[in-house]
């Protein structure tokens, strides 16, 4: 890490968060509300430490991630196939295209009543909501990404006698990779939101459940602490996992950093 990086990124960040914490503390000192409604930074930090020490946060993260990975992998598999079908068949695009758009605009939590009827208060319900919440967005971004590659690449492939699945695999997918990654990132965000919405609704053990538990126990510190954990995970995945992947691909393709 260069001194330049420290000066341009770390120092401003540290100053910003220090100011934020100070401002928060000032509000607490001014007593704008009782401590069971408006938490102090110190109590939130203690609750955060306690949550990790008694392993309840670790357990919640693990449970949530297991659901997320299951649901998201299913969404990618189904969405990938649907996206390729939309690309391949004009008829499918004209007919099912509008339905997929409609389903994509449906907020994921609207699937929950149906999920409860079909799967009951179970793991299956939450995974179903995660899949439904992200699969259509993934389908649409995949389709758009594949459709909008420069036609010259397709002509080159056809000219060299590449067709069918080989054309998809060797030309369409690599050519669309930068936009496919954006689609992945966006669908991940949808899946993550759906998961927490689903977990809030019943005794489900994940992070959403921990959040709701805090409220039921009137433990405002715990509520804010869990919110911080959820936010940190979101930032970590977005910046470090998807951000790194995107940077690697864009560098290799000679594209400007987005």
């Amino acid at each position: 890490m260069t001194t330049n990086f420290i000066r341009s990124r770390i120092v401003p960040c540290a100053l910003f968060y220090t100011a934020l914490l100070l401002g928060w503390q000032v509000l607490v000192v001014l007593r704008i509300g009782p401590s069971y409604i408006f938490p102090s930074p110190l109590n939130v930090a203690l609750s955060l430490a306690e949550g990790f020490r008694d392993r309840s946060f670790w357990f919640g993260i693990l449970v949530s991630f297991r659901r997320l990975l299951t649901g998201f992998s299913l969404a990618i598999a189904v969405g990938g196939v649907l996206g390729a079908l939309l690309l391949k068949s004009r008829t499918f695009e004209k007919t099912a295209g509008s339905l997929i758009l409609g389903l994509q605009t449906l907020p994921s939590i609207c699937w929950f009543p149906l999920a409860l009827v079909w799967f009951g208060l179970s793991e299956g319900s939450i995974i179903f909501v995660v899949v439904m919440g992200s699969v259509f967005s993934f389908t649409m971004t995949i389709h758009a990404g594949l459709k909008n590659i420069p036609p010259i690449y397709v002509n080159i492939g056809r000219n060299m006698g590449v067709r069918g699945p080989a054309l998809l695999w060797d030309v369409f997918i690599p050519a669309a990779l930068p936009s496919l990654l954006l689609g992945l990132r966006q669908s991940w965000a949808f899946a993550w939101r759906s998961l927490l919405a689903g977990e809030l609704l019943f005794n489900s053990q994940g992070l959403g459940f921990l959040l709701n538990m805090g409220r039921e126990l009137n433990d405002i510190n715990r509520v804010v602490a869990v919110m911080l954990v959820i936010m940190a995970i979101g930032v970590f995945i977005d910046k470090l996992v998807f951000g790194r992947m995107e940077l690697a691909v864009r560098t290799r393709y000679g594209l400007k950093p987005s």
Partner: protein
Amino acid sequence: MPILKVDIASKSYPANAETLLVFEKIRFEIGRGEFVCLVGPSGCGKTTLLNILAGLDPRYEGEVLFKGRRVDGCDADRLMIFQELGLFPWLTVRENIAFGLKCKKVPAAKRARICSEYLHMVDLARFQDSYIHEISAGMKQRVALARALAMDPEVLLMDEPFSSLDAQARDLLYEELQRIWGITKKTIVFVTHNVREAVCLGDRILVFSAPPVARLKASFSVGLPRPRTIEANGVIDIVKCVFGELKSEIRKTYDHEFHP
């Protein structure tokens, strides 16, 4: 027997409600190993004709025969080098050259040998592991050429491949292309709007007339010794003849475009 026999009655595009006739009565033959240049004013359908020869555009009236068989689809024996090149940015120089071979399922060892051969032919062995955005415009042209040659096609169809280059890079590539053509003995159909380029490179030059509805206007044979350069005296004399034919056509294009 000519390797390509072109007899196109007409070629049109659907444009809004009507059809737009691009060219008609195009008739010529190309012998094996010949280097033929097509020149003409812009919009006369040179690229369209090349697409037809490649098999990328099968909708035309008439007949194009490749080794006696009608062209109605793509075939790796007739490879196009597009104006935009279309090199794959996700592959290195070497992987780009290997692309077609890999798709044809050529075994890895043979593939590597062929790649190395053409990397050396276009003098890019040092850059084999570079990505496309890391090399110069002239090198990109050579990668595109090597990628096509590696497939060992019988006919190379080149669509104004050098039009975006600076003059020095272009002069070098004229030399390179003539040398490589001498070694590989490919049949080349080369589209350009640059008459000097056409005379420097071609055995024969076909001149198209102005749009709308272009036809084949004239044909010139160039018997000059090779390698030729663009400034050679003989080249300049023939350029004057070809340009004489072309000038009236270019004027017609402008008259048509500005005072239809």
